[in-house]
């Protein structure tokens, strides 16, 4: 389970998150939706401390880190939390100088200090799972966007993270390629992965998430089950946003 409480984040005096609370239960998938600049990506990046919040608490399993004016967690604590999460980026961010299988092995070998052979076996297992095993020796630059994102998913899964963060995982893909990524994420969710995703992709939010939170202006305006939030939003701001999506 991940619990974010009272998360505040400012960028050069501009408050991007105004004390956000969010819980994702173990095995659940929560989607963050909202207009650009609503803070959904920032909130996601606070969960693995790619952004350090000014205030608030991030709790994942037995790691709990509190931020405040006088409190700054050590680098060791930050790494400890990060090593329990995996992240999928909008632009994949595979390591271009490493082959597909090496991308998936990288965290296991460098961070977890696994022996190479064991890491390779685990990587091949994950590549098979995302349907990329036959491309194990390819360079990332030779793959389509959808294939790269599936490799990125395998890389994020490699150390068996307690939480998977997805930052607009389908936004850089055309609809056809997005489908293969949505399918992969859906099967992950079905296997009981805990996920938090920021997305514009209604299909992704609807078909994968059990819970949707709508953010605007740095706060959660409304949250609920996808059918409820998309079908019968309560707040006028949510209604306007859902309408603008043309859904």
């Amino acid at each position: 389970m991940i619990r974010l409480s009272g998360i505040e984040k400012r960028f050069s005096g501009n408050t991007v998150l105004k004390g956000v609370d969010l819980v994702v239960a173990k095995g659940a998938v929560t989607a963050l939706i909202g207009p650009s600049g609503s803070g959904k990506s920032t909130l996601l990046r606070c969960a693995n401390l790619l952004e350090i919040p000014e205030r608030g608490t991030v709790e994942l399993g037995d790691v709990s880190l509190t931020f405040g004016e006088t409190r700054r967690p050590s680098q060791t604590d930050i790494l400890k939390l990060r090593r329990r999460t995996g992240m999928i980026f909008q632009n994949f961010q595979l390591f271009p100088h490493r082959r597909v299988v090496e991308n998936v092995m990288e965290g296991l070998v460098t961070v977890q200090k696994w022996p190479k052979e064991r890491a390779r076996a685990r990587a091949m297992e994950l590549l098979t799972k995302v349907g990329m095993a036959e491309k194990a020796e390819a360079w990332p630059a030779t793959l389509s966007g959808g294939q790269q994102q599936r490799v990125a998913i395998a890389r994020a899964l490699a150390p068996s993270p307690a939480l998977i963060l997805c930052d607009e995982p389908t936004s850089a893909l055309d609809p056809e390629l997005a489908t293969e990524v949505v399918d992969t994420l859906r099967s992950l969710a079905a296997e009981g992965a805990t996920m938090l995703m920021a997305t514009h992709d209604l299909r992704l939010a609807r078909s994968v998430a059990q819970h949707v939170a709508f953010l605007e202006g740095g706060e959660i305006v409304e949250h609920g089950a996808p059918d409820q939030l998309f079908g019968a939003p309560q707040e006028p701001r949510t209604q306007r946003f859902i309408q603008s999506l043309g859904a």
Partner: protein
Amino acid sequence: MPDWLQLMLTSLWPLVRAGLIFTVPLAILSFVFGLLVGLLTAVTRLFAPGPLAAIAIFYVWIIRGTPLLVQLFVIFYGLPSAGILIDAFPAALIGFTLSVGAYTSEIIRAALTSINKGQWEAAYSIGMTTRQAMTRTILPQATRVAVPPLGNSFISLVKDTSLAAAITVPELFQQAQRIVAVTYEPLILYIEAALIYLVFSSVLSVLQSRLEQTFGRYGGFMERAR
């Protein structure tokens, strides 16, 4: 056989020998040390706290802003007045290392900052420390970017080592001067010296394109404009 060819042939080995004993080691050693200084300087400028970064900036400013020949004179002829005596070869080595360090630090800094911020984040997201992200993810990609300009620096350096003649290092060019002093044939000898430098640089150019291929084998960037 014409006299000029005879002269070129008899002076060939003394010149090449001076090149192999002094020019090549001076160039290689000062480039290797210079690269280390350059990497350290670049990393200091990018990551170290203000005062250290300021020292790095100051160093680059001084070295780039003053002539290399003057720097060599300061080290070899100047420092003895301050009680610091350095032999000719080590003096040249120090001078060239400092020079290479300053120029390559800018190349390395540019190469490091050219790597997308997302690559740092990807490295951090799998739990890497800053040092791991740097050595495993950023540096290898930055190397590909840096090889062509570093190759440039190295070739420049090989030619610049002729300045060491002015501080009594008996390298290739000084050897040519010595032969000229005896034979009074400056045109022939200096052209011959120039040709030997040309051979050295050409070998290096080939080496550079090999390195480019090795570090760029993963693709994903434009190799040739079409």
